[in-house]
């Protein structure tokens, strides 16, 4: 579990690199399965993720919502092309 590193690529991309002590399949699943994503992709202290829709297939819906009790943050992707 190396420390996280950030690197920019062009003007629009940030490449995040980090190691995990787990098989690649498990890390992949933890990024796709909404039940798992909701356990860790929470950001700063005090935020939760009440909505996590992730239908990982062509035409599938995707919507992530965060809440800190006061405000709400939404990542409204258009969907998976």
């Amino acid at each position, binding site marked *: 579990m190396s420390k996280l590193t950030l690197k920019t690529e062009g003007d629009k991309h940030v490449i*995040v690199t980090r190691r995990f*002590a*787990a098989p690649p399949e498990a890390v992949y699943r933890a990024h796709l399965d909404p039940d798992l994503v909701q356990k860790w992709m929470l950001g700063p202290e005090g935020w939760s993720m009440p909505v996590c829709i992730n239908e990982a297939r062509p035409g599938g819906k995707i919507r992530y919502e965060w809440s800190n009790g006061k405000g709400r943050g939404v990542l409204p992707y258009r969907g998976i092309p």
Partner: protein
Amino acid sequence: MYSLNAAFAALADPTRRAIVARLAKGEATVMQLAKPFAMTQPAISQHLKVLEDAGLIVSRIEGTKRPRRLAKSGIEALDQWLAMLRKALEKNYERLDEVLAAMGSDRKGERR
């Protein structure tokens, strides 16, 4: 008054980011700043005004010149905000470590 909105808006311009990068090496006059950018001094002055209003640079008076340098407090405020994001990202992955560990022990449990 310093605001993150003004600071990031000021930095949304590539010339102004280049000016900030140049000033990170040390103080410079308008003339020194105008040279590498192939811009007129009034154009550079306009960019400097935006950066100054955003709290990212300060000037001092030296005879007829007004050399500019980075404003430590303004740059630090940006840095703190970015550090908050980095910390949130690190925290995410620490939680992911725990999720992965739990997934791993589940698998071991199934095998038994």
